[in-house]
């Protein structure tokens, strides 16, 4: 691409539905007051699970966000959350939703969607009972006729359809009328950072003028929590959910699973100016890589993470010295926090210990596919307010992890450029760089 003609891409709206609140203001207020969203699991009965708590979205009602609740009623939790987040982000960005003939100055064929979105929960009752009825334990055989009798008798078409990971994007397109490039990706915990990064690149390439980007995910369901429990990826600190997510501590024992949706409106500067939309921040760079190492582990030398960070810096034409703050992946798992710290040391060299980094997962929990976009929103707010969000519960630092993790309370700072990084199971690494907007 010709460097001179590279378009400037800005953020003109943000919206969130998450365990720390169902709008941006509430979420940020909770972060700045060091509150957390963890509590006993209520979405399903987890009382006999190894992990009995999580970070749930509370009191969210999609019917308050839409004129057509009927259209979204079959959506999974996260397909409803994403409507809430899009409604808030579009309002801020002066984008009209649910209207036949929008007068916001955006050609719907030039408005796209890129979500890092997850699958929906199976229909648990019918899913498990069909297996119970069909399975002959003595013969170790499935009687498919019996299985099908229960499955066809109980399962509902839309309940099944809504499990597909492209459904959140489907709801967002119906809600906004977006007819440009619409797509969805799922690269585990890196998905929504990747979605924002790729949306940024699509705008630079001229494929659209506006992109609704972000993520939506809820894996707080019987099979999801079971899967993570079996991987021993979740904290089992059942006696103290509030302090269970403790990134970079010696006593960290896994992440706390959360749920939610987070949306940023990306737009060419030209389009934002033309429409008179307010600019919150500018996206400067994006880097993506894969570990190609092991299915189960991150690369021991943080090869992929380093490559993605360096690619993002190069894309932004910046040096590590220009970065004022890093919003980490910081999951509170033993492996991630060590390798991420190693990666930061490799990239930031002599500046590593002077560059503040933190993990809001200590308060919000881990929104899996939606995590990156939620954290990008916290980066934008950090730039706006000049405040670094803290890493909470950092009372027993891991002696081998010695960066400035902004422990336990927010800190005022003059922030110009921030880096957001996300890493996914399977080795996808994605990094986005955002800067305070200047004319």
């Amino acid at each position: 691409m010709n460097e001179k003609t590279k378009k400037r891409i800005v953020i003109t709206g943000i919206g969130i539905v998450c365990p720390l609140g169902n709008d941006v203001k509430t979420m940020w207020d909770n972060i700045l007051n060091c509150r957390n969203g963890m509590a006993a699991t209520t979405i399903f009965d987890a009382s006999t699970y190894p992990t009995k708590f999580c970070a749930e979205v509370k009191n969210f009602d999609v019917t308050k966000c839409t004129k057509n609740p009927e259209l979204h009623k079959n959506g999974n939790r996260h397909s409803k959350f994403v409507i809430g987040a899009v409604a808030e982000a579009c309002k801020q960005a002066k984008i009209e939703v649910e209207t036949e003939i929008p007068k916001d100055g955006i050609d719907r064929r030039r408005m796209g969607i890129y979500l890092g979105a997850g699958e929906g929960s199976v229909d648990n009752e019918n899913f498990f009972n069909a297996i119970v009825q069909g399975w002959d334990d003595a013969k170790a055989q499935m009687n498919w006729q019996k299985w099908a009798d229960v499955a066809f008798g109980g399962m509902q078409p839309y309940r099944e359809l809504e499990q597909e990971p492209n459904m959140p994007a489907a709801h967002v397109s119906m809600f906004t009328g977006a007819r440009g490039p619409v797509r969805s990706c799922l690269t585990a915990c890196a998905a929504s950072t990747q979605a924002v990064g790729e949306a940024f690149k699509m705008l630079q390439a001229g494929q659209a003028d506006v992109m609704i980007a972000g993520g939506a995910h809820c894996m707080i369901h019987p099979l999801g929590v079971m899967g993570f429990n079996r991987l021993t990826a979740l904290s089992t600190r059942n006696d103290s959910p509030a302090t269970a997510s403790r990134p970079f501590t010696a006593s960290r024992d896994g992440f706390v699973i959360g749920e939610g949706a987070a949306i940023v409106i990306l737009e060419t500067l030209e389009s934002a100016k033309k429409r008179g939309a307010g600019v919150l921040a500018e996206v400067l760079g994006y880097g993506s890589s894969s570990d190609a190492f092991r299915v189960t582990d991150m690369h021991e030398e943080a090869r992929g993470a380093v490559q993605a960070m360096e690619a993002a810096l190069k894309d932004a034409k910046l040096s590590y010295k220009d970065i004022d703050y890093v919003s980490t992946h910081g999951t509170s798992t033993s492996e991630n926090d060590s390798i991420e710290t190693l990666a930061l040391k490799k990239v930031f060299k002599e500046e590593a210990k002077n560059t503040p980094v933190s993990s809001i997962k200590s308060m919000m929990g881990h929104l899996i596919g939606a995590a990156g976009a939620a954290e990008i929103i916290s980066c934008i707010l950090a730039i706006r307010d000049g405040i670094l969000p803290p890493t909470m519960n950092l009372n027993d630092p891991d002696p081998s992890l010695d960066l400035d993790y902004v422990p336990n309370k927010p800190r005022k700072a003059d922030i110009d450029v921030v880096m957001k990084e996300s890493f996914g199971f399977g080795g996808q690494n994605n990094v986005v760089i955002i800067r305070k907007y200047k004319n």
Partner: protein
Amino acid sequence: MTERMPVITGLGAITPLGLSYKDLWSGLCQGRCGIGRITAFDPVGFTCQIAGQAPEFNIRDHVPKAIRKTTKLMSRDIELAVLAANEAFKDAGLKTKAFDEQNITINPQRTAIILGAGLISCDLIEIAPAVAKGVTDGKFDIRQWGLHSIEQITPLWLLKYLPNMLACHVGIIHDIQGPSNTITCAEAAGQLAIGEAALIIARGDADVAIAGGGEAKVNPIVHLRQCLLKRATADYNDNPEIACRPFDSDAKGSVFGEAAACVILETPENAKSRGANVYAQIIGIGQSCSINAKYESLEPDGKGVQFAIEAALEQAKIKPCNLDLIIPHGTGVFDDDAAEARGIQTVLGSCLDRIPVFPTKSMVSNSGAAAGAVDVIAGCCAIKDGIIPAAKNCGNINKHCKLNIVKEQIKKKINYALCTSYTYGGQTAAVVLKNNE
């Protein structure tokens, strides 16, 4: 940016027509049908009892010895993708870590992998013994499940079913360290993945990419989903050969199947410098969205399909009448076929009669996230051989469809081919291929 639009230099496909893209292409040319009664499980209680299944293979024969034990972590979707990726790299004449560790001819950090993947369902038989321990009075009881069943599930269970694991395994086998993404837009995923890979190369973030999709839809839950939505035909269980009837007036639904299809993309410069065989160049990518309150179906006027094609032609800088071949999504779902036809017709206008349209699913079945990539491979083969095969099961074209469906095989030079795809949920894609001879 257009000058860096990639060329396709390698093909790989595992489909119901065979374990190679050559089987796929010869099968399509001969009018062979890969659809039959389901053998992966007993379909007796299902409304639709037929599907497209790939021939048998043993995955352990297809991965380097050093990582053979990771095949235990491969769901069927992953296995299919691994095979297709192997063939694509070989066909491109590229040596990766998998083939010859001493003489690697890709730069791992400058190689990308972008695959479309479906919603992978778990293996019900694998978890059934554990589920059976979570029962009270003959009904599933989650507390019992929590107490007795969870610990019986294999620890790495979840990793078999994450959609990004197709790209993860292929990436490890071939040492691909550049951008990696997994597009999860159901039946549009394969072409959207190829589109994203093309953009990554065009913008300079990689020199080589492997792109496409893989999905194994012959799984009880996945199959049931399509049956419940009435997208899978229930009318031809005794006649699988004629079951999938794209654009035909007797179409009663689609037939689902399993496949993986991958293409190797590279910059024209890269291909030239190593003297690679070029099948075609991707010169246009279009994307849009169908918006319909009944979001399991296309909107009746096919507007999303129309917009995607228009965007692809615009980028390709060609007119509709320049097209020599269209490979549509054509599923055999009557209303969707009619809507897709309307969308294509709107774009083609007066050249409607002149442009041959060749749907593939009547032979190869509907393989979800792989389907669009299967069609791109068919398009590449058509361009290379100058052949458009005859369509199958479309003898009595439905009255909403004015497309020129190919009745008899055509031999002619194909300069430009268009592939389209769409999905429930609305995402649409269009890809324009150019003959670079």
